[in-house]
């Protein structure tokens, strides 16, 4: 019988009650007495020099409190970048300034030029129209390769060119890789694009800055995945506010997907303006603003070569990637195409030699940073597409070619610096073949063909590095932060528990799954445990939620803190039971003396801790509250195998997804239902990328897909009922829960199988000249490829 409490129970998400009944408390629900409203005047050209800003007419408009421009931010720090990449030649990446409001130049459509603070939002918007801005147009660079040509317009005048860095990994392997490729029996080459995406969380970004002059305290309410990181970056690097005078609160957040990790100009502005004006200042992004101010994702152009020997063993991989940084370096942008991408190029395969080259390029576009998967989807896509192409070229079964090259012994040190602790790739592939009913595909294809449709099957594997991250390792790789996490377990007098966690839940269901762990460890009911998160004044200094790290890193901290609680509670119980501490056992919420029927209940122990009348005060302190910080020893390595079946209408080029199966190995699982939900969401986003979503700029740098009329989000009828399985479990060896993380897998693992399936469908219809279609595989692209 399935468990109904603790680890392994599919407990329904308690937070959904408030989300589904309109009782959530999102940042836009936060209203501070006397607040003013801010509207940002944003650049509508991609690149230009600001020759004049005249705010005098606007300042005279009704309701205007104050208008800020770049001048107000002279001498104030710009937005910092949290990761420094060192290039192939040992030089630091180029790190141009990132002002809160434009200084002298605008560098992308949406770059904020001025901010109008007014009594109402309508007045702020009206006044913004009265600001006179003259911008001398400059040529915009949009295409990455064109941006690197000599004579290209420079996004940043103080840099030599538009190259942020030219990264080689592992540089020492380059010659050996070149040699292996030149000597290979077969080399498959593929050039592809990983399309630019906009994360589009349901809740747009919001910032409310507040200031209490009486005690010189600032508060920022913001839609963030990591309030402590924002407090550190904004307090220390931008505004110079000591951390004890700055509180950052991220209440209910309606989806993040990475785009709410970063420290944004609007957050710094609202905090700054509230201090200047001594009143609260609120900004709520419109959807249009979100398209041109939220960090975008992906946008890589890659050439990958896969070398094989005469027996079809992979011998080497070489890649060259252009990665778009946009106009400025967003908080973690430099890490995405490098350490989150290059280190994953081994995938699930024992390729002995790998060389990855990445050129990061500044362009006059919105900054690009982590989006669900961040670097790992880009790695997976290239690798799994080129393997499929190689199988086709060699005339071998794509599943068999993968199986032949699987890593089978663990731990496995890849040639790209990471060491996989566990995995069982043949087992996940076996499971996939079962749940996808690969054997039945031929019959389904024949049935489709009867109806005049082409049917294709695409398969891929993936591996990801999650549980981000070992601080000492990422420090060596250029991170300017540690990536541990923290939890405080506060046991109340009557035995209920509040756990203050550094992780932030914005859809992941932490409020349900985290209590399951504590309840399991103590043998009490989950309902006795609540999670507190998202408020820097309430929680210990944790690093937030991204990179599928919450349960693996923060969950581990929570386990460590709970272990401390158990140790102390056993001391109290031993005292109450007049027994030796070594003989105390905790089971089902009862402390008992081994081998006797003497026991004391959890609640009696916790009450004794706070009403210490009969208590070993000479040995231990009263109270029952413990904090632990946890720094992981390694990344975790979730893996899986996915299969997609598409039907393609040869008349129109329209592709529909008929079946999708995902067999994942996430190690141990806390709440199977939540894990399935995470996979479902990731699959929808991966399918969205593969078939629908595309963030497009025209050649002048105008963003031309900035609404849901032009940016096609996946809808319910674009995705099938998924077959999802996570019964293959090789527990992580280095964290106490044996968990690996599941948040990004669906988005990482699904795009290649969709495109592999589309190519397979086209080949079955005789269109064997089509070896690749860039994402999104829209009907027009598919149709053009068929007839190209």
């Amino acid at each position, binding site marked *: 019988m399935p468990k109904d409490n603790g680890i392994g129970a599919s407990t329904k998400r308690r937070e959904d009650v408030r989300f589904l009944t309109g009782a959530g408390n999102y940042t836009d629900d936060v209203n501070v007495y006397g607040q003013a409203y801010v509207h940002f005047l944003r650049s*509508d050209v991609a690149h230009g020099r600001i020759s004049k800003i005249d705010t005098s007419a606007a300042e005279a408009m009704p309701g205007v409190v104050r208008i800020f421009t770049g001048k107000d931010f002279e001498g104030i720090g710009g937005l910092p970048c949290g990761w420094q990449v060192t290039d192939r030649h040992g030089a630091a990446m180029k790190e141009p300034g990132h002002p809160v409001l434009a200084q002298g130049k605008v560098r992308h459509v949406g770059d904020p030029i001025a901010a109008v603070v007014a009594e109402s939002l309508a007045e702020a918007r009206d006044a913004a*129209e009265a600001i006179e801005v003259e911008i001398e147009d400059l040529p915009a660079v949009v295409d990455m390769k064109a941006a690197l040509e000599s004579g290209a317009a420079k996004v940043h005048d103080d840099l030599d060119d538009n190259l942020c860095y030219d990264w080689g990994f592992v540089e020492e392997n380059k010659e050996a890789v070149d040699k292996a490729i030149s000597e290979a029996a077969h080399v498959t080459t593929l050039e592809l694009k990983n399309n630019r995406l906009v994360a589009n969380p349901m809740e747009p970004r919001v910032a409310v800055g507040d200031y209490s002059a009486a005690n010189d305290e600032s508060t920022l309410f913001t839609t963030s995945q990591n309030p402590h990181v924002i407090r550190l970056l904004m307090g220390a690097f931008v505004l110079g506010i000591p951390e004890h005078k700055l509180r950052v609160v991220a209440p209910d957040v309606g989806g993040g997907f990475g785009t709410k990790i970063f420290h944004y100009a609007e957050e710094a502005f609202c905090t700054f303006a509230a201090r200047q004006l001594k009143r609260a200042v609120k900004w709520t992004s419109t959807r*249009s603003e979100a398209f041109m101010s939220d960090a975008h994702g992906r946008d890589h152009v890659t050439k990958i070569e896969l070398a094989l020997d005469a027996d079809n063993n992979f011998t080497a991989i070489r890649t060259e990637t252009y990665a778009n940084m946009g106009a400025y370096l967003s908080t973690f942008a430099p890490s995405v195409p490098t350490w989150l991408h290059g280190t994953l190029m081994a995938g699930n395969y024992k390729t002995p030699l790998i060389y990855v080259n990445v050129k990061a390029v500044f362009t006059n576009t919105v900054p690009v940073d982590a989006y669900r998967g961040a670097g790992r989807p880009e790695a997976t896509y290239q690798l799994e597409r080129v393997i499929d192409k190689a199988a086709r070229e060699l005339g071998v079964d794509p599943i068999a070619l993968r199986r032949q090259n699987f890593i089978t012994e663990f731990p496995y040190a890849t040639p790209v610096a990471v060491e996989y602790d566990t995995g069982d790739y043949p087992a996940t592939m076996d499971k996939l073949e079962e749940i996808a009913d690969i054997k039945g595909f031929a019959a389904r294809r024949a049935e489709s063909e009867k109806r005049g449709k082409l049917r294709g099957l695409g398969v891929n594997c993936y591996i990801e590095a999650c549980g981000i991250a070992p601080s000492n390792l990422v420090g060596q790789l250029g991170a300017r932060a540690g990536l541990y996490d923290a939890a405080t377990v506060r046991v109340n007098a009557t035995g209920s528990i509040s756990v203050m966690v550094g992780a932030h839940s914005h859809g992941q269901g932490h409020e349900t799954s985290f209590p399951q762990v504590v309840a399991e460890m103590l043998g009490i009911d989950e309902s006795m445990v609540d999670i507190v998160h998202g408020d820097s004044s309430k929680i210990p200094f944790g690093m937030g939620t991204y990179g599928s790290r919450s349960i693996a890193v923060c969950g581990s901290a929570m386990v460590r803190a709970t272990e401390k609680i158990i140790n102390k509670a056993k001391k109290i119980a031993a005292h109450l039971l007049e027994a030796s501490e070594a003989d105390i056992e905790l089971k089902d919420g009862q402390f008992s003396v081994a081998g006797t029927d003497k026991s004391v209940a959890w609640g009696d122990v916790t009450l004794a801790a706070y009403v210490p009348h009969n208590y070993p005060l000479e040995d231990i302190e009263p109270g029952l509250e413990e904090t632990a910080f946890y720094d992981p020893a390694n990344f975790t390595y979730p893996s899986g195998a996915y299969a997609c079946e598409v039907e393609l209408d040869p008349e129109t080029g329209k592709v529909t997804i008929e079946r999708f199966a995902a067999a994942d190995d996430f190690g141990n699982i806390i709440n199977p239902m939540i894990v399935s939900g995470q996979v479902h969401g990731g699959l929808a986003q991966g399918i969205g990328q593969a078939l629908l979503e595309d963030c497009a700029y*025209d050649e002048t740098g*105008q*963003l031309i897909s900035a*609404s849901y*009329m032009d940016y096609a989000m996946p809808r319910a009828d674009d995705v099938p009922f998924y077959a999802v399985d996570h019964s293959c479990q090789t527990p992580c060896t280095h964290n106490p829960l044996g968990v690996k993380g599941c948040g990004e897998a669906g988005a990482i693992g699904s795009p290649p199988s969709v495109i592999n399936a589309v190519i397979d469908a086209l080949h079955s219809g005789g269109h064997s000249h089509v070896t690749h279609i860039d994402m999104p595989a829209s009907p027009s692209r598919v149709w053009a490829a068929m007839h190209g």
Partner: protein
Amino acid sequence: MQMSDSREVDAPREVVWAAILNPEVLKECVPGCTEMTGTPEDGFQATVVQKVGPVKATFKGNVVVSERDEPNSLKLSGEGKGGAAGFAKGGATVRLEENGAGTLLHYDVEANVGGKLAQLGSRIIDGFAKKMADQFFTRLQEAIEGPQDPEEAAETEATPGDKKKGWFKRLVT
């Protein structure tokens, strides 16, 4: 976007030339134009109200006349700012060729949009620009020649003798 087209106008080149440079004519002919002032020498100032897909805005801007080679060719270029709606800018090179007693008017138009217009209206901007140009030159032709459609002509205050003339041609002949 770019487009080219030509039209036969039943008037001599000098008349067509003068019409193109007359702010009153331009105001009548530019779709949505509510104000047009200025001179060919100093440029024109225009206010145009237009709706592009979901974006409706009042555009204010300047039109500069350059490369004037009377009565053969000229270039019109301008930029209209629509505040929060973004901007539209573009130019038209107009060539006038003798065509019997009339004129063959060639035009090459180039137009760009930016800001919200590009973000929300890019799918429809080509069609929109073509419609704007068509309307402009149709109205110009009508202003010079008189309406093509007899019913529409009857609605104007045209007298029988003026039936073949547009209001501008009446003005100058």
